[in-house]
């Protein structure tokens, strides 16, 4: 259907619906008067009534008060004034100027989800003509999702003035979403369906699917169904990509958890049961760093992770160093006994953390650059996961370089292959041992920084990853960093493709069975060391 005709139809329909155009804008005093009614609104329905009134007033001046209400900042003073409490400051809800100080306790104007939803709708109606395109865009999006017929005329008005093409098309979609239900002219509805179906994302699907369930006109319903099917098929395609991404991101988490172990266990042959606790220490270091920053340098929060990385490396590395010097070094040549000793260490570390930090989860926040998600087509990518993938690759690259390209790496490998001979070659084996173990532990520590962003920081953190870590290292092939990378990614991706079909529990079982069977095929892991040397 040619665009022009569609537009004409829509405009016509809008006119036909003939909502009364909003009159002159209310002034600040008027808005203030309405806002002050929050003071007496102690029940939810009363709050809703005030919001409705603000919406009806149609003045963007009401937006700050509404936003504050949404954020739980709108307070009622004992003297009946309504103020915004932001940090330590008290503001007038309309003018946003500093308000007179208040005697006694403030009382919050209560909200709940349905009220927040309502606020969102009202704000979007009020901000459709805001100067910033981004805000207009959000407003249009909100209206699209709510398809609130009450916003139609505001939308029309805004649409008429809109200059930004992107915003404009969003607004058209929003209008279509409203008209789809509000209009009873099949032609208008058909046109709306086309616009919505072209949008093609999950929200569009929601709107169309809702309508398809309740449409009165059979033709229109068929068209809606068609639209739904169309969107679903594109979404299904994106779904595959999404699964791969999930798999990669899960894989990189597994990889990160395991990579330290690939050194302490894979390279050195120490069955390091305390590996998980090294990860945990890294996570707790992040917590301490953030706590310090929160208390002393709130501005630096965005950098908290960058500060935590080296510190976590140091903390875990140091603990590893102490462990190696104190215990492990007595056990070279008795690799199995390291299991017993490190198990003991892990118990102690766990309980120590529990004693120091308490048994509960500790809050580690995500800096802004680690929060939220963005879309690639219909694929949503969360920032935290993306950074973790990037981070994992960096760690891998650095480690690969260190192990294969530096003299220290060579010495590490030599020492672990034949300690006695390495010593006879003049390599300071105790030093190299300690350093290798510290490196492995330190890497585990920085993995902890990453994990603190997606998992809970509790004394049990280590335990949840230790088994997976061993699986990854062994699956990839002990002693091979590439194996750990590919192993982690493979398990991640396989897991994510199994999960939708088998469910998370069965999926996990299947993964384990898969590992067992795979090891039958390749008894030395994915990247098996080959040749006479390994027999």
């Amino acid at each position, binding site marked *: 259907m040619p665009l022009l005709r569609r537009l004409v139809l829509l405009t016509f329909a809008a006119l036909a619906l003939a909502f009364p155009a909003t009159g002159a804008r209310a002034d600040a005093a008027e808005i203030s008067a309405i806002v002050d009614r929050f003071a007496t609104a102690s029940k*939810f329905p009363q709050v809703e009534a005030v919001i409705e009134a603000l919406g009806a007033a149609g003045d963007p001046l009401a937006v700050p008060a509404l936003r504050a209400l949404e954020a*739980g900042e709108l307070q009622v003073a004992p003297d009946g004034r309504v103020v915004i409490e932001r940090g330590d400051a008290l503001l007038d809800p309309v003018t946003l100027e500093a308000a007179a100080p208040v005697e006694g306790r403030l009382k919050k104007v*209560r909200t*709940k*989800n*349905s009220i*927040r*939803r309502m606020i*969102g709708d009202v704000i979007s109606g009020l901000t459709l003509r805001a100067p910033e395109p981004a805000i207009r865009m959000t407003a249009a999006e909100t209206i699209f*999702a709510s398809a609130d017929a009450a916003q139609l005329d505001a939308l029309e008005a805004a649409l008429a003035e809109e200059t930004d093409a992107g915003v404009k098309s969003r607004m058209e979609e929003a209008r279509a979403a409203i008209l789809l239900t509000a209009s009873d002219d099949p032609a208008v509805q058909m046109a709306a369906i086309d616009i919505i179906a072209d949008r093609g994302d*999950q*929200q569009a*699907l*929601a*709107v169309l699917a*809702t*309508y*398809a369930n309740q449409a009165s006109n059979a033709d229109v319903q068929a068209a809606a169904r068609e639209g739904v099917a169309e969107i679903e098929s594109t*979404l299904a395609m994106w779904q595959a990509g*999404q*699964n791969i991404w*999930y798999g990669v991101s*899960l894989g990189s*988490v597994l990889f990160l958890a395991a990579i330290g172990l690939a050194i302490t266990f894979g390279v050195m042959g120490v069955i390091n049961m305390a590996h998980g606790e090294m990860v945990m220490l890294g996570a707790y270091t992040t917590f301490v760093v953030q706590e310090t920053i929160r208390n002393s340098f709130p501005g630096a929060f965005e950098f908290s992770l960058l500060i935590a990385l080296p510190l976590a490396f140091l903390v875990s590395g140091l603990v590893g160093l102490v462990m190696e010097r104190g215990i492990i070094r007595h056990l070279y040549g008795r690799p199995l006994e390291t299991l017993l000793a490190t198990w003991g260490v892990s118990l102690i570390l*766990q*309980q120590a953390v*529990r004693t120091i930090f*308490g*048994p*509960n*989860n*500790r*809050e580690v*926040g*995500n800096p802004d650059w680690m*929060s*939220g*998600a963005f879309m690639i087509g219909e694929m*949503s990518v*969360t*920032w*935290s*996961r993306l950074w973790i993938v990037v981070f994992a690759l960096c760690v891998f690259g650095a480690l690969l370089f260190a192990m294969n390209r530096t003299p220290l790496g060579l010495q590490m490998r030599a020492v672990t292959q034949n300690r006695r001979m390495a010593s006879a070659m003049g390599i300071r084996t105790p030093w190299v041992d300690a350093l290798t173990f510290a490196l492995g532990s330190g890497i585990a520590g920085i993995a902890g920084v990453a994990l603190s*962003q*997606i*998992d*809970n*920081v*509790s*004394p*049990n953190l280590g*335990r*949840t990853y230790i088994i997976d870590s061993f699986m990854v290292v062994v699956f990839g092939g002990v002693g091979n960093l590439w194996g750990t990378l590919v192993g982690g990614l493979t398990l991640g991706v396989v*897991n*994510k493709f199994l*999960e939708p079909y088998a*469910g*998370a*529990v069965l999926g*996990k079982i299947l993964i384990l069975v898969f590992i067992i069977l795979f090891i039958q095929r390749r008894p030395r892991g994915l990247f098996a060391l080959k040749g006479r040397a390994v027999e």
Partner: protein
Amino acid sequence: QETIKVGILHSLSGTMAISETTLKDVMLMLIEEQNKKGGVLGKQLEAVVVDPASDWPLFAEKARELIAGNDVSAVFGCWTSVSRKSVLPVFEELNSILFYPVQYEGEESQRNVFYTGAAPNQQAIPAVDYLMNEEGVERWVLAGTDYVYPRTTNKILEAYLKAKGVAEEDIMINYTPFGHSDWQTIVSDIKAFGAAGKKTAVVSTINGDANVPFYKELGNQGVAATDIPVVAFSVGEEELAGLDTEPLIGHLAAWNYFMSADTDANAEFIEAWKAFAGEDRVTNDPMEAHYIGFNMWVKAVEAAGTTDPDAVIDSLIGVAVPNLTGGYSAMMPNHHITKPVLVGEIQGDGQFETVWETPGLVAGDAWSDHLPESAPLISDWRAPMSCGNFNTETGKCGGQGS
């Protein structure tokens, strides 16, 4: 001087330490306060703390040790159902008293156990009612950890929802393993499920540690409470303390107590707790359950004039003590208690704001009316019935007597 010993059977290490350690602390605090008030029956109370280490058979061993080895008069303990199941035979055999403070799946009523946490009808059903009536939810995701409590609760909810006319395809049930930490797929499935055009909500029986990554993922993928609210039965103030709740504002939890409850008793309790355990500590529902349970026990012992288990068990029924939300909770003949049901929304400060509550107290129902086999069962431990699973259809006390 002779003391009355009270056993505390909560894991201080292992996976459950995260939840249970607080309960041990609150018990110590309650006992200390009671002692300040002069103890019970003129004797001081003495807490006997052991660590069953999240190891279920060890719970049984430690229970035996407490009762037989330390002669405790009552035990306050357990969190998971399996730990309770593990100690049940011990309490029955050695005839002692257990106060169990956690919401659970019901389907049990045992003479020696007093359930001060919520039964499903005191938490799950009202929460669903709220979502259905107040939020207009039509489509349901029942997400849980794969074990008995979620399974049973979801069975009950499923039956309940279907009875309310919710269609099969509008219910999605999803189970995850313990400690599940990668929620990407499930959260995006929930989003997709919620995009079908009907108002959707998630009823979460996800347990323990798995909640934090779940909520983080919800936040990151932008599942806002205004779109798809999540109502949880195992997420309380303690769990939120480990989270940045800013992105989670508006998601819900159903409990019988919130720390934010605006009563004098609560303010006093919180103050005492902070003084005892630390300024940054929070309170939560199971703590209140222990508060209630402990006070009931004290009252019952005083009434019976002895700590003899049989006498105390009998005198406990009917005891009513103030709860922290401004009412009185009473011990019912089925060894469950009456409680208000609150639905709260998560706030930015990690607290819940009550947005709804039952008009009155709800009595805990040991046997769900929504499961066919348990519907005819009732429990009444008073003489002459003295039965935890009386079948009203056959008129017999199932299992026990035959």
